[in-house]
């Protein structure tokens, strides 16, 4: 009986969620067709869908997508390599952890997006400044989580493995890594997400190409339906990438 009630509640909540989306779309449609909201502020949803179809068919998005993904890949490669290496070697010495951890956490508390103008000055408007910003921003969650992961391995485990004659490699492979991996993976996922956000963000603020740039370009030329379509496209891409990374995280976590 209780199961049936649970089930009903679950369906009811799904219905509320679906209803919310339907009502929202309906309001949007009515606002643009009946209530005369300017199409410069809110374009007709039908036209947005048409534009989205056009973007996907024409393949116009490929160039911008490539640039954004390449920037993301470069930034994440730099930050994950640097963050994991730095975090691991610091974590080997509790003393170094005590020296560096507050320092890293302190810098992490600054909104690093502030450095964007500096990076633009330094690296120009091209992809380099986006990669640099994305790498800087995502470095901190990665290094801090790696530090926490490797730093908080129970000493008993390490001592036990050592006393049973584990080599450095074995200690790392079978004790340290499995113990640290969940926390480290969380850091890598957080790093990936903020890298993606900061790269789209810096493309929005100052750039020559990329998905963020395209949205701003369309906004400035007042092509609202197409801009909305691009926003939807970028949101889907971002959610997709984040889902892929979360899935990876979940899989690795289960079988280290």
């Amino acid at each position: 009986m209780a199961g049936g009630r649970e089930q009903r509640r679950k369906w009811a909540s799904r219905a509320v969620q679906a209803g919310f989306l339907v009502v929202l779309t309906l309001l949007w449609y009515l606002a643009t067709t009946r209530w005369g909201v300017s199409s410069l502020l809110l374009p007709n949803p039908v036209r947005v869908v048409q534009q989205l179809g056009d973007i996907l068919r024409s393949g116009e998005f490929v160039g911008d997508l490539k640039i954004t993904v390449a920037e993301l890949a470069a930034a994440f490669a730099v930050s994950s390599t640097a963050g994991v290496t730095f975090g691991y070697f610091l974590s080997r010495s509790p003393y170094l952890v005590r020296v560096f951890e507050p320092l890293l956490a302190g810098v992490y508390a600054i909104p690093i997006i502030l450095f964007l103008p500096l990076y633009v000055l330094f690296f120009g408007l091209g992809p380099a400044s986006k990669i640099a910003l994305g790498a800087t921003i995502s470095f901190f969650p990665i290094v801090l989580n790696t530090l926490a992961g490797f730093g908080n391995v129970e000493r008993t485990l390490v001592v036990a493995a050592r006393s049973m004659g584990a080599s450095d490699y074995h200690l790392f492979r079978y004790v340290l890594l499995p113990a640290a991996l969940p926390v480290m993976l969380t850091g890598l996922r957080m790093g990936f997400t903020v890298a993606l956000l900061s790269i789209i963000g810096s493309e929005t603020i100052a750039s020559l190409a990329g998905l963020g740039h395209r949205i701003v370009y369309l906004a400035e030329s007042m092509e609202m339906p197409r801009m909305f379509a691009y926003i939807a496209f970028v949101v889907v891409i971002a959610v997709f990438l984040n889902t892929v990374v979360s899935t990876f995280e979940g899989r690795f976590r289960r079988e280290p």
Partner: protein
Amino acid sequence: MTAASTIRRALLRHPGWVRIGVVVILLCAWELAARFVVDPMFLSPPSRVLASLDRVWGTPGVPAALRVTFFELAVAFAISVAIGLVIGLAVGLQSFARLSVMPIILLLYGMPQITILPLFILFFGIGPASKIAFGVSHGVFPIVLAIVAGVQNIKPILLTSARSMGASRWHILRYVIFPHMIPSFFAGMRLGMTGVLLGVLLAELYVSTAGIGHFTTQFTQNFDPTRLLGLISILAAMAIVLNEIVRRAEIRFGKWHSS
């Protein structure tokens, strides 16, 4: 020999000194790089940045811009906390609302809001309103999530016993839920402040007429790294102070019943 080992032991006992040493070494490296290696058009040594802070402050419009940014941050934070508290309580206290609305909130939170920054500018103009709105859009979600989590974690037995002893709705809210919510409320405020800072600064950097975004663009275009770094330092200091205030508040009020 003994002197060296004494120093060694002192350093081992006080990692804080070494931390300061690391910062000093990094600053020295920056100073040397900026003076001898990098083109002065792109990087300025920290000593010069420090010495020219008053020149930054003296740039016409900069103090006003910093005031505008501070005002935007404060208003956005206040609105985020107010809205977050209301939504968080409304959603968190009702188990059906939690079940049905939480996925929507999580979906919205998971969206890259930066993509709709141009829309905020279109809707709210290029003045402070759009920065405040964008700051709120970043700050409100962590607060809602923290409050929902906090309300959810209240032991049901406390609510049941309060009710069975005849407490009214308001009394339960006032004497059971509020006190138990306080730690997560402050945790949410800290995360909300991080979000508000990010949102407001993103919008400021994107487009700005009177705020600091205007000046960062100007200094960048004029290849004036000294003043750019000065302005960024002032803003970073502002962000650190604001973060520190909410962090201290969290530590102070955040753990009354954890013991």
